[in-house]
């Protein structure tokens, strides 16, 4: 683990002694070596906003930038315990370090707090996660579908959505030359 990441994690566990962050590498490399420099921490959904504020504002962390916000559906994933993992990828420009935060939620109503209050850029990314995975973001200013049309009901990136779709169609009026 990098020294900078080490510092972030010790600052985190100092600030939130009651949360089990269980820092682990983001991926196992194909050659068997563990990708030691990319670390993610687990944060429960009810503490997420506090932890994110801390990561954004504290001197030791200073993650000014939310690089990405996405989601993983762990349905039928080996050894997975939860269904959805909302993934936050953070970068500190001033201190030049990164960390990933995963927040696991489950059916029937997966919901995590919105981080738009911490990073304004999270707004559209959260809309995309809502559209594609159906994870709700509480206190989001404008949680509408962003990529599919308004009447669409499914969440197509969920693993249980059929690869061939369910035949949903939008019912718009057909425009002809005469109907103008």
């Amino acid at each position, binding site marked *: 683990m990098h020294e900078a990441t080490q510092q972030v994690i010790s600052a985190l566990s100092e600030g939130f002694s009651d949360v089990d962050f269980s820092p682990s590498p983001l991926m196992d490399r194909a050659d068997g070596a563990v990708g030691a420099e990319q670390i993610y921490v687990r944060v429960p959904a009810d503490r997420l906003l506090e932890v994110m504020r801390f990561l954004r504002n504290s001197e030791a962390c200073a993650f000014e930038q939310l690089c990405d916000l996405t989601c993983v559906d762990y349905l039928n994933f080996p050894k997975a315990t939860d269904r959805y993992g909302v993934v936050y990828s953070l970068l500190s420009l001033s201190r030049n370090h990164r960390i990933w935060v995963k927040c696991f939620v489950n059916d029937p109503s997966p919901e995590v707090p919105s981080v738009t209050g911490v990073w304004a850029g999270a707004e559209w990314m959260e809309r995309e996660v809502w559209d594609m995975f159906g994870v709700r973001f509480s206190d989001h200013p404008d949680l509408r579908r962003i990529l599919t*049309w308004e009447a*669409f009901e499914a969440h197509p990136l969920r693993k249980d959505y059929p*690869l061939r779709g369910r035949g949903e169609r*939008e019912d718009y009026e057909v*425009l002809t030359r005469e109907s*103008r």
Partner: protein
Amino acid sequence: MSWIDNKFEEGLIVTSLDWAINWGRQNSIWPMTFGLACCAIEMMAVGASRFDIDRFGAGAFRASPRQSDLMIVAGTVTYKMASRLKRLYNQMPDPKYVIAMGACTIGGGPYFKHGYHVVKGVDLVVPVDVYVPGCPPRPEALIEGLMRLQDKIRHQTRAKDPISRVKEEVLN
């Protein structure tokens, strides 16, 4: 078809007027700056110097539908985009033309069978004048499509077409 079309009896004045109006229209088909997916890259190539659609008077890509005559639907039309596309079409002033460029636009293309989000042909949304097949079509193909559209414009007339004349006679 605009308000002036199919209104008059055929005659020397009308056909000369036709010639002049069609000449003007066919040589200044200004397309709208409107690219949706990979096909738009080929459309840009057509606009650039190597293929140069400006030779046909169609190089002035307008940034506003209010100033454009032609909508080249270049790329995948998703259901979300379809309603926006229809609005853009409605905002264009008459006379207006649509070229459906690429397999996606003509009939859903690679997304025809299983895509949950792609319109199965833009002619389900707006009326299409010329279809240019390909995935993506070569720039030459789009130029060919533009020339066919020019043919179409060249054959427009302000005179009543025979069918509507017969209809009128029968009805009166």
